[in-house]
């Protein structure tokens, strides 16, 4: 291994020693950096704790103040003036204000907005928003809408179609924050896919807002952007938009499996007398997962009209489909239980187990 001739041709001890010294120096530098960082972090922690305490106290004073002519937020305590010259402390304070505001509404929340503006934090948010670094821009947008800077709406709108997913997501949230259901208008023009996380965020955000009609829902259901269709289907499901039943039914032919799956779920929420037969019609062309979904949804709407279909699929090769069909028969068909019992007697395996499983689940 350490044969002199070969090895000394490949490795010169001089070079190795120089590299070793370099590594040792880098190591020393890293160790120093670790302890300097830890020290700084500890200091910052105590400072932030102090600021947090003082801010909470100050804000509670502001919130309790009834002086309309000269609101309490106009007087910045001198210790804050010193703190607010430091960028990190300002950043921390903005985060604190956002956290506090999340749990407040009405006049009190407005006062927090005034405070944010009065302390010049809006300028900080604008600087972040104008940054070319995506995470700073997203943070800037977040702060601006959390602090109700509604005049930013036209500027923010164009970022709802930003190339960066996180900037886009914050801009979309801003639009909904400012305009409620009308803010969903960005769905008309969006070129990028909306992730399921974004969709979930939008749906949860909308829950906190008074419902207003979604005029373009039909158009979104026909969008070329699959994720827009998916979100529109979820909106139709949550807000039970019965008027788009036919558009939703059309989505059963969509080429994306997830869209079809969501269409099945949505149809079950806005079902009419034809929905069961429509679902049954598409069943045979569907994937295994969507077949299961159809059978699951039929539990809320099937009738004796679907009995033959269900009995056929009670004998499907796939055990999950057998079980799902048995559930629908038991719940929706007249004499369903008797029928399952009869089949279980004739062919105990697996139908006896299926019968008792369904019985345990539903009765």
């Amino acid at each position: 291994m350490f044969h002199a001739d070969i090895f000394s041709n490949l490795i010169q001890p001089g070079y190795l020693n120089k590299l070793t010294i370099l590594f040792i120096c880098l190591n020393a530098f890293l160790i120093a950096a670790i302890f300097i960082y830890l020290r700084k972090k500890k200091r910052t922690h105590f400072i932030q704790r102090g600021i947090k305490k003082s801010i909470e106290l100050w804000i509670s004073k502001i919130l309790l103040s009834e002086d309309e002519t000269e609101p309490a937020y106009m007087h910045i305590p001198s210790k804050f003036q010193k703190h607010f010259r430091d960028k990190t402390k300002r950043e921390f304070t903005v985060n604190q204000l956002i956290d506090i505001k999340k749990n407040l509404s009405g006049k009190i929340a407005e006062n927090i907005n005034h405070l944010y503006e009065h302390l010049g934090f809006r300028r900080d948010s604008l600087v972040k928003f104008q940054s070319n670094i995506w995470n700073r821009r997203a943070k800037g947008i977040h702060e601006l809408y959390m602090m109700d800077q509604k005049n930013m709406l036209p500027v923010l709108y164009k970022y709802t179609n930003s190339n960066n997913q996180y900037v886009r997501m914050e801009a979309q949230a801003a639009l909904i924050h400012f305009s409620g259901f009308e803010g969903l208008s960005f769905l008309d023009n969006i070129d990028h896919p909306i992730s399921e996380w974004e969709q979930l965020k939008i749906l949860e955000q909308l829950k906190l807002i008074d419902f207003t009609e979604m005029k373009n829902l039909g158009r979104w259901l026909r969008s070329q952007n699959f994720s827009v269709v998916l979100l529109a289907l979820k909106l139709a499901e949550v807000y039970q938009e019965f008027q788009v039943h036919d558009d939703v039914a059309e989505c059963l032919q969509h080429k994306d499996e997830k869209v079809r799956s969501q269409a099945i779920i949505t149809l079950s929420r806005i079902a009419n007398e034809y929905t069961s037969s429509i679902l049954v019609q598409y069943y045979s062309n569907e994937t295994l997962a969507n077949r299961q979904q159809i059978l699951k949804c039929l539990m809320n709407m099937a009738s004796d009209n679907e009995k033959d279909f269900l009995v056929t699929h009670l004998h499907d090769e796939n055990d999950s489909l057998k079980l799902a069909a048995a559930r629908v028969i038991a719940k929706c068909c007249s004499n369903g239980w008797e029928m399952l019992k009869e089949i279980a007697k004739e062919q105990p395996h697996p139908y006896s187990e299926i019968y008792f499983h369904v019985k345990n689940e539903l009765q």
Partner: protein
Amino acid sequence: MNWQVIISEALTIGLFFYSIVLLLFYIFIGLYSIGETRKYLHKNNFTDYRLLAASEHSPSVSIIAPAFNEGQTIVENVRSLLSIYYSNLELIIVNDGSKDDSLQKLIDVYQLEKIDFFVRYQIKTKNVRGVYKSKNPAFKKLIVVDKENGGKADALNAGVNISNNDYIICIDVDCILEQDAILKLIKPFLEQTQEKIIAVGGVIRIANSCEIKDGKLEKVHLPKAYLPRMQALEYIRAFLLARMAWSRLNGLLLISGAFGAFDKDVVIKCGGYNHNTVGEDMELVVRMRRYMEEKKQPYKVTFIPDPLCWTEAPSSFLILGRQRNRWMRGTIETLGMHKKMFYNPRYRLLGMLSYPYWFFFEMMAPIIEFFGVVVFIIMASMGIVEWPIFFSLLLFIISFGFLYSSFAIFMEVITYNQYKKRTDILKLLLTSFSEPFIYHPFIVWASIRGITDLLRKKKNWGEMTRQGFGSPAIIKT
């Protein structure tokens, strides 16, 4: 030149280039992981995870925890898992034919009753003897499956068969999860639009010496004992650097069996866990990736740097040796089962980089190192070692090892900083100095034992005795 010189030169040159490539890989991994961790921290800077917990549109998740003879700790472990924060969740405990009173304890404490349950054997497993659910609505998330003994992989597969949900999280029953662990682990599945996320891994940390009360982690401490402390450092390096870098490359081959989330549909399509290997966790990830590559479907296996899962590390050389012996056998078995991918361009990065890396630098490294030591001893005894070069090389390698560990500790400190005390960080740094002399040689030896056991066709798992988190408030040492 005679043949001895030719062989000697070939070996020397080969080893030299092997070492250079390995070092370059380490440097690349260390630096490349920074971007992934930074991105993760930035994008989740103001994420409100409560949205996911509360939403009716959040995906349904099943936690599957196999248990074999865990009677001492099972009740506390289940209590800990039941406290996890996520609404659309079921917890499946699979009693893999335990010979102790695990099942009876669960029945008594959680008021379980056997229910009629039609088991769909989507993946073939040993017979399920019964499925139990609680009469108490407070434990409605809990399902206990009692089955014939078939090993960990078989128990996990039984859990997959029982699961009603879209995603499965496979964990070791004695792991302690952070309250928001599922929220963080599931989010990546929802974020991607171009590629399907098939699996997500999370960071595992060492719970030895931590304060644990009622199945919850109360306070984090650096392990007091040497071996767990060394493993704490090893886990920081592995999870915060290596896995983050491989995740960024989309070349991750391993998600730890102790904590990982999977798309259930893909797991079933791949046939579930393989019970012919002791490395079933790695084998599943490799097979899932291979399946997606062969189907030509865009996919990703991703990893998140949050410390979400805490586990008890072996604190004796005997148990640690068994664990590393098994890991080595699992690696070799998995690579053997998928040798078709080795430098096969059809499998793209998986075949051209991930697999060869594991082959040369995870599987072969202990063999080469052991071989190197043997040759060195022979040469030293023959007096043909050039000592100045030897010492230069030794110092070079050791200083590089320290640097890599220090960098990992630095990354830990500026990101999650689990060990708050400066003395803990200092101890961790000092521990890294001892690694090349105590810990590393032992790990190499355990791996060599793994290889010899495999050659002798030993298939046993290797008993893993743990102290457990059973008592109401303990500090584990």
